[in-house]
């Protein structure tokens, strides 16, 4: 099976993000649109309904290294959040605790990551977790 080179992949994702072709519940785009290496991305996740995340918008930073999509991106929450797979002091998503990053597949995209994080928020054990005041951020 053929492999899509990194830049093609990221351009595809960029277009999808900008034109809003993806699902409503998440959004992503380049942090700096002049960044030709397409490394740093912003993402937002709309908190899933019927949970303590309802009505909240979570901002994350995504870093797609040079070996993306062979390697998973690094994901870090900007908005404070209380989730088992998120480091509670730095906001980084811990790879070992988040199955999408742990069992990364080349076919996964940033959208997959955001949607899976959103699902993570909605699991029965996580959705009732006490959440920090909205608007607070990790350092």
């Amino acid at each position, binding site marked *: *099976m*053929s*492999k*899509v*080179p990194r830049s*093609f992949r990221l351009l595809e994702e960029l277009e999808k*993000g*900008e*034109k*809003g*072709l993806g*699902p*409503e*519940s998440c*959004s*992503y*785009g*380049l942090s700096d*649109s002049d960044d030709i290496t397409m490394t740093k*991305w*912003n*993402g*937002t996740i*709309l908190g*899933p*309904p*019927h949970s303590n995340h*309802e*009505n909240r*918008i*979570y*901002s*994350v930073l*995504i870093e797609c290294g040079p070996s993306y999509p062979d390697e998973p991106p690094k994901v870090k929450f*900007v*908005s404070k959040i209380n989730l088992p797979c998120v480091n509670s002091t730095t906001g980084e998503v811990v790879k070992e605790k988040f199955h999408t990053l742990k069992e990364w597949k080349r*076919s996964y995209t940033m959208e997959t990551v955001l*949607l899976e994080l959103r*699902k993570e928020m*909605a699991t029965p054990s996580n959705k009732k977790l006490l959440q920090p*005041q*909205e*608007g607070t*951020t990790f350092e």
Partner: protein
Amino acid sequence: MSQISVHVKSGQNNWTVEIESAATIRAFKETISGVSGVPADNQRLIYSGKILKDTETVESYKIQDGHSVHMVKSGGASAATTGSTTTGSAASPAATNSAAPSNISAGQTGGFNPLADLTGARYAGLANLPSADMFGPDGGLNSSNGANPESMLQMLENPIFQSQMNEMLSNPQMVDFLIQQNPQLQALGPRARDMLQSPFFRQMMTDPQMIRQSMQMANSMGMSPDGAASAFPAPGSASGAGGANETSTNDADSAATGAAASSTGQANPFAGLFGATPGNAAAANPFAGLFPGGQQPQFNQELLASMFGGNSNATGAAPAVDNRPPEERYESQLRQLNDMGFFDFDRNVAALRRAGGSVQGALDALLNGDV
């Protein structure tokens, strides 16, 4: 200073708004409230993963003509926080008193559900939803279960339905959904996507002629009336079609011969079949040798369905393919390649042939210099 038009999406709603690129986000929100009825204070706009701040301008976020912005209605009046400039997250005091905004609560829990749209207002009076008698008692399009094959054919001949079908299959999300819903397709991996998106598959799903042939074939193969074999090639049977489809797209000529070879080796096993009256099934059926159990009643219907799906596809698609010139056959793929900057028509066609119509495969071939 220029006027751009931006799509604003919120739940099922989608508005297009004209705005000066130098305008502030606040002014943008005022404009949006004009069409959406949502007060500017209750709007949160998201673009490219960023929450837009009131004080910035449309330009500063590099929002361009034709791009989309998501609008999220916030629950409480959060006017006090809209000026927040510290970080990317516009704070709004925990909206505890508010119910879920309709855009979030409506079918957004698990991501994508294309069927949800069917009940949405956007299809009201527009879609030709099939009449109830088309579906069998089990809700499926299984003609032998009491559904009315005639009305299905009629529906398939409707150009609106055809274009909807085409649109649906060209929507990558829909394809993902289909694959995700069906374990057999999942097992196929990336090939499933290629197959579902291939023009041949679409043709197979939308060409009334082909469906009719399939039905005829189903009859002549003597399938039991209550069997699982569906005349409408369900995704399950399509997984079998994947194999045949791939050969047919790889090389149209060899597909025809390949299909012939895989049956019992008659020169043209299908000619007899289509000419045969349904009663004669056993004699005319060239596939009998393919199945270990012959036509025993306990025969695995699913296997039969998938084999059948594959064969019908090869019969129908191969001749159709031969007649079409490459620029027509690969029209959309060629356009995509052109968009990416590959202008050499002959090379593009050669690469697409080699890759069986897959743009990604063709790109690889072009980039590796294989063609």
